[in-house]
């Protein structure tokens, strides 16, 4: 299959590069939740507009927002 973001060949939903960004997104959500009590959707929107967020993170966020994946993910999920 192809990466949902960039179209690179991959065996999961995202390629290695975007998977790394997605994992980073999941990992940082805990800190955001603790600090700002934001929902997953709110978190994504804020990261999208943050000047320090990485390019691949923003691409993953854009995909999640446009594909309607706004449910808080289970971090243990295997992709």
């Amino acid at each position, binding site marked *: 299959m192809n990466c949902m973001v960039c179209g690179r060949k991959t065996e999961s939903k995202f390629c290695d590069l975007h998977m790394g960004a997605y994992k*980073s997104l999941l990992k940082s959500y805990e800190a955001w939740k603790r600090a700002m009590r934001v929902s997953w959707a709110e978190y994504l929107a804020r990261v999208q507009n943050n000047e320090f967020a*990485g390019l691949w993170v923003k691409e993953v966020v854009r995909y999640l927002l446009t594909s309607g994946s706004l449910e808080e993910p289970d971090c243990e999920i295997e992709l």
Partner: protein
Amino acid sequence: VVTPKNVLLLCEKPSVAQHIASALDENGKPQRRLISRVPYYVAQRDSRRLVIVPALGHLYTVAPKIADRNVYPVFEFEWVPRYEAERNAGETRAWIEVISKLSQEAEEFVLATDYDIEGATLGYTILKYACGGKDQNAKRMKFSTLTTNELRKSYAEIISRIEFPTIEAGVCRHFLDALYGINLSRAMTVAAKKWSGRYATLSTGRVQGPTLKFLVDREKRINSFVPTPFWSIKASVEIDGSVFEVEYEKDMTDTRDEAEAVVNDCIGKKGKIADVEVKKLQQKPPVPFDFSGLQAEAYGLFRYTPRRTGDIAQRLYLEALISYPRTSSQKLPPAINSRAILESLSHKPRYTKLAEHLLSQEKLVPNEGKKQDQAHPAIYPTGNLPEKSLGGPERRLWDLIVGRFMATFGKPALKQGVKVSIEMNGHLFFLRGRQVLREGWMVFYKPYLRTDEVLLPRLEKGQEIGFKDIAVKDRFTKPPARYNPVSLLKKMENEGIGTKATRAGIIETLYSRGYVSGERASVSELGFDVTNVLERYCPEVISVSFTRELEENMEEIQSGNEKMDNVIDKAISRLKPVLSDLKNNQDMVGQDLSEALRKARMHQRIVGDCPECGIGKLVILYSRRTGKRFLGCTGFFKGLCKASFPLPQKGAVTSAQRTCPTCGYPMIQLRMKGKRPWIFCFRLDCPSKEKNKQ
């Protein structure tokens, strides 16, 4: 009548030959002669006729015995004249022929190239191949500056043999670079060409691969970075009408509530000074410049890339204004005679007072650094003053080198730091002051110092302080910084890959291949994909440890503890399975690289976001009917947007990476041969063009 005996002195460049000839000729007036537009000089010394002939950098290069670029692996290499192996090296033919002719009339040979690994290797290949095996009985001049005194001394104290262990290490480096560079680059280029049918140069190398990997790893961290929020307290106090920033005892808080609680506790209240701590510290002078130190300072002060600094320093060396710049040493031995250099510099009004200040000291002892170089001392001004006025960059760099040289002999500076602790309703704030009490060495290095003094009024314990401002500041963690040319150079140096002479060139190659762009090096998709392919099919090639191991082996050869043949055999035995894997996976490698190249070409054609639909991208397209190029929106292929704009049909068009200040459309850059690049808005009805018409 006794026929004078010819001594052939071989140097690296024509300007060096002129310096050496002028220094060694008894009357200081050597004859300049030409054969086939190749200059050489004839000088007289001690009843001997000296023929001083320059090279043109390397005249020989290592080339594979199988020249066909589609064949790999190749493990047999040989030294060949550069004109046989490289395009645009045609002029080296005349130089080799002239040196060869002059060598037949000489009975003694002296190597007077730069005293380093490249200078020795370059001279050795010419002595061996152009002069008919004269490497074995050639003598050697060793010098670190092109001043008359040092050149005469070097000739008087000539070394009886050329430095064979250094040459063996240099030859080994050339063979290893060719072995890796040619085989891996051919493997990648051939794979991509076989898959796509299109030729594109793809390259990697023994040092290039690991260097690109550093950049890729950093780029991955930046692109996958998610900032996390934190809060800090921003506060200032007013003392005697002056405002000073103060720091809260904790740099950051994890929640906004915590930070707001601190602000609420302090707002509108007065604090009391709990403690005033004064510390004095001596700051030693800076150490003399080695090559990388000079490159780092010139980048920090003037934004010169390491390559540019290297080129400027080389020009200053050839003008005999500074010592040999490609040195690792941070030491200034007494033999350079610092007192004489300062006396000479004092004749320039700009340095008169400073030099006299140092000369009044009984002893001149530099503050040396730890790094050493057996071949050359640290970089220092020779004491020669420019005969003609220097260009801006040369003048700046020379002044920096003079300033640093003088500063190293200065006395330590004395600085004072003050830390005032202010207690405020159970919270602590710190007010910091910094002051230079005695300038010491700083006097000599003033234009290049970045001092940030904060002078505080007299403050005492128990004194009340009013806060002018206190607020919570929303902040986010930042991603790691991208490498700049100097930090990348430092990283290569710390990891022990490449040499001081080759690192800047390797970084430039990464740019010219399109793997990296921008002053803050950002990796292109092509750079990612090339690294990805190498990581998947031959990880050893981009491994720092393997490259470092080879560098260590070459150092052992130079110190006489290892043999070149062993190192090359080891490298071949490790490269063979890698190339075999690449060959077995040629289709997949070709497919991955072709796709990466296709995307890179596509990316080059994108000019910017389509301003008409806001969804697609504007790309350079070619009309099937007329073959003419124009700008069209990618949305056209999905039936979403019909935006299109005409383009000039001549010259190379690329994105200018900026938008029109009048209409906000992306701008393009047009490059035509012999003309300066032209950046303009492609929109024909852009209001800026109306203004021009009026």
